[in-house]
């Protein structure tokens, strides 16, 4: 079994216009920058993107938004040091926003991956973000019913990977990546080092390969925070 891909370009070639795409990362950490930039190179329109944020500066997700590839964003915190790309389009009504509390976003993605169509959470009960959602009472406390989130594709970033799709993550770059691997029909991973099957201790695998469809080695990955501090612009 070999899920490895020769290049980021090859890995993202299958993403069509109109797709729903989960993108891993939290702020500047754990985002699959090379996969995102490959998708910008390829071009795709009218995407629904699921990410914790809305990009920062002029690279990665912010660059996708600036290139008008994204028609809807599902996220918890569309603010950053330099959120221009999103803010302008949002205030102009050119991009739709579904705002989800961060823990609910994580749990909805996990639910999508785990075959749980709906669950109840105390989060957002009694707030504007619960408007229109069913409410349930359990043991005398009120909860909001939330639905699963699934995607056509996930773009994620790991540290070690093997050809079967098993992966580990570096430090806090883990964040949403393992969850998104579970919740997409087709998960595309970039890893810093591709090792042979057996090269990752089975006890240390964080994402089992069953959740990954293609994997590409990007040996010296770019880091969004570092790029932004350098004032990088893509393309």
């Amino acid at each position, binding site marked *: 079994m070999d899920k490895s891909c020769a290049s980021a370009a090859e890995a993202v070639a299958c993403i069509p216009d109109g797709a729903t795409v989960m993108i891993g990362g939290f702020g500047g950490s754990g985002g699959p920058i090379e996969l995102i930039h490959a998708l910008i190179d390829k071009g795709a329109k009218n995407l629904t993107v699921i990410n914790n944020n809305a990009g920062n500066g002029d690279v990665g997700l912010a660059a996708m938004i600036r290139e008008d590839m994204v028609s809807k964003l599902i996220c918890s915190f569309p603010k950053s040091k330099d959120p221009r790309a999103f803010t302008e389009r949002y205030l102009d009504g050119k991009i739709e926003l579904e705002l989800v509390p961060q823990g609910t976003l994580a749990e909805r993605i996990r639910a999508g991956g*785990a*075959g749980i169509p709906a669950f109840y959470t105390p989060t957002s009960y009694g707030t504007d973000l619960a408007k229109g959602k069913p409410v349930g009472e359990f043991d005398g406390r009120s909860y909001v019913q939330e639905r699963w989130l699934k995607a056509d594709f996930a773009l994620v970033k790991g540290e070690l990977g093997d050809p079967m799709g098993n992966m580990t993550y570096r430090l806090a770059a883990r964040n949403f990546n393992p969850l998104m691997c579970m919740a997409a029909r087709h998960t595309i991973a970039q890893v810093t080092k591709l090792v042979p099957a057996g090269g990752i201790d089975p006890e240390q695998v964080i994402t089992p390969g069953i959740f990954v469809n293609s994997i590409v080695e990007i040996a010296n990955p770019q880091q969004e925070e570092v790029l932004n501090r350098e004032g990088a612009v893509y393309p």
Partner: protein
Amino acid sequence: MTDFAEIKLSNAQIAWRAAQDIEDGAYVNLGIGFPEMVAQYQVEGREAIYHTENGVLNFGAAPAEGEEDWDLINAGKKAITLKDGAAFFHHADSFAMVRGGHLDVAILGAFQVAQNGDLANWSTGKGVPAVGGAMDLVHGAKRVAVVTDHVTKKGDPKLVAECTMPLTGVGCVTRVYTSLAVIDIEDGHFVLREKLPQISLEELQAVTGGELKVQGTVADLIVPTL
């Protein structure tokens, strides 16, 4: 009247036939007991990755006797070995794989399969009830198949118009590999795909509890001596 006992496939042969339909690269869960035999007949040149409910992906054959590590077992509590690229995970992640539709095939045993795809394989309704992962598996895998003798030891049909035993899942089975035939379940009907050449359609129908539809040709069910 053909003597089914003489010509019917052995469990090994049923397992062999089921193994022919497992695609290269498939993620597969085999039910405890008879279905586990399917792994022995993996088609040359194809690689299947086996999942077990208690949290292992890509396990291999049983170790030699005396070589067991009893922390490394499958859902049937039998000792296993690991292949390269294996992974461990906890039970919630394991059933996320099952329930979340990440498995390509689950192959299970059956007491009864109904023509609408209902499966009864967990309880005879007597003694201590025990369900394990059966009810999760039938709603998880992309394809749920059954391997079974065509009839019970008493000769009663196991493929039935309607299950009379406690259900494991509703409308979940899509293909049944029996000791006499290969039958798909489509739109609430048994559709006969293959049968032992020695048996006539009428003879097969006589030991089947729901109508056997025929669509196009019925192929001969040919398996090697095992």
